[in-house]
């Protein structure tokens, strides 16, 4: 975090407070594109936080982008802000100019492969976030096995609609026969796995924001809802549940911050892998435990579509599985530390 964070966070907070309201979020799920929200984000430059000045972006720090994503998670913004940042990051890595408008990036699953042959693509991407809402897709493709970065127009692709647990677009996109608008060689080390690392850090930070939201909402509800003649927050059982939720939110926030710092360092070495894995694992756990507590505290009220609790909890349930879930990252991290050996475990944890 640097000094400009406060300004950027303030800008994002004011904007999202006004334009990421419960009714706009519900409308978005019903298929109405939140144009006012998106345009305001784009005009403020927040959508290109991860793109340098030279490539048409805002030229802010990596940490600034993560600070914005935390706020976007807090307000459960129903737009591809994270996806546009990720696409901008990916294009920027290959030195490509970044177009205006909403974007998404893929593949989300590191095992997927999209091939480039004679200038045309073959292959598909599963569950691509907001594909139908985006104008462009930034992709890692394989040209004879070598990773390259491709910019594709959504209008050129065949899209089959799908939705996440939060009702957000997660579309299957076929690239068969599509000619990319532009292709550039990927710099050394940039591949599907690295994209998933940045994606995992991104989702972790969004989840940390959404977890903060459900803590705020749950504490507020517990002080307002009266049963047995007093606010339910006066009952020790509820107090203990909310204390546990606060612990989960705190742990998630700490882990997500470390992942954002790892991406900002950008070495993507074992230490960075461990920080990102830690975040996706620990924040994912907090999403599961925390959502359950928030719903329990809200009772039947929080189970209704009318209440806004689900804006955060359903996104948490969706995000925890994207770019690798807790089990996948745990296995990766476990193999990583096992290979380094027992005597290196503590030095590795302390980074010294």
């Amino acid at each position, binding site marked *: 975090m640097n000094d400009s964070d406060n300004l950027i966070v303030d800008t994002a907070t004011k904007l999202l407070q006004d334009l990421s309201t419960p009714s706009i979020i519900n409308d978005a799920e019903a298929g109405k594109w939140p144009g006012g929200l998106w345009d305001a984000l784009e005009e403020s430059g927040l959508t290109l936080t991860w793109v340098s000045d030279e490539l048409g972006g805002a030229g802010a720090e990596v940490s600034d982008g993560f600070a914005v994503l935390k706020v976007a998670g807090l307000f459960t913004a129903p737009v591809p802000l994270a996806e546009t940042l990720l696409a901008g990051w990916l294009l920027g890595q290959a030195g490509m100019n970044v177009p205006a408008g909403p974007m998404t990036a893929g593949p989300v699953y590191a095992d997927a492969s999209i091939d480039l042959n004679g200038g045309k693509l073959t292959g598909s991407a599963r569950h691509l976030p907001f594909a139908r809402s985006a104008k462009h897709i930034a992709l890692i493709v394989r040209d004879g096995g070598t990773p390259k970065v491709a910019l594709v127009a959504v209008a050129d692709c065949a899209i089959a609609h799908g939705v996440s647990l939060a009702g957000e677009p997660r579309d299957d996109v076929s690239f068969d026969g599509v000619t990319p608008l532009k292709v550039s060689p990927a710099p050394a080390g940039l591949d599907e796995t690295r994209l998933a690392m940045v994606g995992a850090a991104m989702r972790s930070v969004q989840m940390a924001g959404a977890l903060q939201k459900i803590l705020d909402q749950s504490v507020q509800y517990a002080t307002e809802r009266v049963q047995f003649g007093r606010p339910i927050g006066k009952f020790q059982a509820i107090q*203990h549940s909310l204390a546990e939720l606060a612990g989960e939110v705190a742990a998630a926030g700490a882990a997500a911050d*470390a992942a954002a710092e790892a991406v900002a360092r950008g070495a993507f070495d074992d230490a960075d892998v461990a920080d990102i894995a830690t975040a996706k694992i620990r924040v994912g756990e907090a999403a599961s435990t925390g959502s359950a507590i928030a719903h329990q505290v809200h009772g039947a009220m929080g189970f209704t579509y009318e209440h806004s609790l689900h804006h955060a909890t359903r996104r948490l349930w969706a995000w925890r599985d994207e770019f690798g879930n807790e089990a996948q990252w745990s296995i990766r*991290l476990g193999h990583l530390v096992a290979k380094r050996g027992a005597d290196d475990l503590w030095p590795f944890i302390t980074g010294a």
Partner: protein
Amino acid sequence: MAATGFRFPKVDLGPEAEQLRADVRAFLAEELASGGFTPMADSWTSGYSAEFSRKLGAKGWLGMTWPKQYGGHELTALDRYVVTEELLSAGAPVALHWIADRQSGPLLLRFGTEEQRQSILPRIVRGECYFCIGMSEPDSGSDLASLRSSGKRVDGGWLVTGRKIWTSGAHLCDYMIALIRTSPRDDTARHDGLSQFLIDLKSKGISIRPISNIAGEAHFNEVLFEDVFVPDSMVVGNIGDGWKQVVSELAFERSGPERFLSSFVVLREGLREIGEMPNDGAAGSIGRLVAQLKALRRMSLGVNGLLQAGESPVAAAALVKEVGTRYERTVLEDMRQHIPYRPAGQSPDAYASVLRDGILHVPSATIRGGTNEVLKGIVARELGLR
């Protein structure tokens, strides 16, 4: 809606602290090689070694943050953090001096008289003077303010009568910092009328009875006071301010790495058994435990950063202890699924030994120093619910 909850600022330890870490590691490697200690789980409550404590004193790793005039080294809370986390993660025997270094010394620095500081702090720094805490009583556990041990005003001091319990290390320590009722209980102001006394455990009228724990060890005790004379010079701070003074210690007492590293040696020795090519099930467990540990360490470092900055993050410290002590149990439960406990045989078995100690000690982790129920209450108060 205002954001509720807790903030843990990022802490950069810096090159000096990292050099200190390297020094501690080198020392520990030598001690291990020469048989100076055997790594144990929960070593800060069960590894008693006067020799080891004195060695740490000679190295300059006790009273690290205290003023030089009392023998201290005027280093930062984060320097101390690095040293303690290295000692704990190695399972080194640090129990004897732990309370004096962590809590009693800082208390005397804050509230003690000049005479108390000069006579006691340099001895703690050398690893020669040990403290225990006299808070709980047979009828006063979580409800500490209900305690009944009392001091009667007499010429030149106080006559103390009562009973303290669960006093770790009392049989080996020089002093107890005891919380004693010095004016009659007032049910409308339960925290008033308590005072902290520095009690010389060799005083006449004290008897110390060991209590065996479920691991078969007798580290904690019942301490009986029968008309024990405590001179005025041994009052800590102000008469009647005991509760306030005790609360001020809590952020130090609860945020340290001992609240989540007590079972680290089980994770390390378990990983050694599992080897470099684990199956995915074992790898997944290890990965999850490492992730949880890294998150906890960052939170704990954040609280210590706030302490170093002069804040008193009591609720954040309670939260770290609550999450951290539950993690201790998770380590043991997860590791035994992959490498079950093996009853002790004739040959040395490092994993079985630390797992045994870990399992038999872990019930106390979520009780000592404030039960998790009490801690959740503190967190709930911070959330504005009480």
